[in-house]
């Protein structure tokens, strides 16, 4: 399971990247690669990796951090796939998906962080930097066009 998580994670990101590049160049086959990449990520990598990581986790009280993280990433990835492929329902998915990490995952994560009185700042800083990056660039892209 560990190996499958590593391979599926790296593979799906690369499939998505190559698919997007092909799409920009207007070559054929882009859609299949993008759907494969994002679908693989949402349906194989995310569940397998989350379950494996939780099984290995020493602190079992972190269950909700894993669950909320999974839900947010899942909705966002599927939303991105629908949007890129112009499937129906993409806008609804993104409208739910964009604020979701901040209203679901962030409170759960911060609550757990404070409850455990975690003095290790590495994880906290990593999560905060990624979320800052997402929100700043979302703002930029949302108002650019």
């Amino acid at each position: 399971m560990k190996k499958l998580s590593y391979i599926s994670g790296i593979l799906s990101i690369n499939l998505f990247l190559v698919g997007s590049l092909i799409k920009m160049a207007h070559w054929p086959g882009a859609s299949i690669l993008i759907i494969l990449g994002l679908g693989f990520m949402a349906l194989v990598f995310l569940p397998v990796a989350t379950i494996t990581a939780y099984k290995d986790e020493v602190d079992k009280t972190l269950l909700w951090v894993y669950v909320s993280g999974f839900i947010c990433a899942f909705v966002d990835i599927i939303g991105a796939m629908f949007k890129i492929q112009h499937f129906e329902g993409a806008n609804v998915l993104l409208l739910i998906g964009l604020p979701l990490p901040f209203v679901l995952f962030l409170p759960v994560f911060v609550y757990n962080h404070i409850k455990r009185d975690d003095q290790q700042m590495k994880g906290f800083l990593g999560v905060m930097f990624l979320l800052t990056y997402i929100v700043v660039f979302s703002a930029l892209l949302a108002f650019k066009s």
Partner: protein
Amino acid sequence: MYHLNEEELNFVRKEVERQDIHFRHLANDLIDHISCEIEEMISRGRKFQDAYKEVLGIIGTDGLQDLQKDTLYLTDKNYRIMKNSMKISGVAGMALLVFGILFKMQHYPGGDILLVIGFLLLGGLFFPASLMVMRKEYQQLDRPLIYITLMIGGLAIIFAVLLKVLHWPGANILFLLGYSMMDLLFLPLLLFSLLKNTSDSQLKTTYVIGAFSLFFCMAGGLFKMLHYPGAFILLIVGSLGLTAVFFPMYVYKMYKASDRLDPQFIFLCIGMLYFNMFNLLLAYN
């Protein structure tokens, strides 16, 4: 004067440990102090157990715990204030930004104010405080210049985005300043520091590839914002290098030895996905 024997000393040591005193210096001081008090009382004709109970009575039952709390609080007070303000400002700033974006998209009034306050909190409080905390936590990157350049570069980019979103002037100059700070100063410094601290040659190659890819990505981002030619190629080379070459190599090196799946890996994957998505959207726009 009476001296405690080994057995009695061990008893005191165990009692202090039982009270969950994990702050090393304090524990040693306490053991020393309690032992002295007991010796004093035994010299005045008490038995060991009675003397111990009396000393404990003076300190109070929860006394040791309270002492530890006070000690930690005093030695770490400033650091703690910084940490707490960092956490609060980070979460609050993020929430304000999200609502600001939603308000602005729906054309409700007040979106601009929310955005400005959110960006100020994130850029003015959270970002500097988190860099200082980082400096304390990651001792291996101990060059202050790394943090200074990251701070100036990051702040410039954060506020450039704010100006751009609000259509105020000056965004492009800030973008230029921020991106060139990151690209020409921060990245090389970080790379040199990382190379100096690793002896593994494969890991060194990985870092070099990563740094160059990131360099191309950031240069591409800057070129795109300023409408210079060549942004597209730079962004694509950067993303490909980062995702297809650096990422697998890094994961292989870092997690090969680990016998459990680190949640950090999931986090990294999602981060990479977002990074690529934003880069590609930027290239496409």
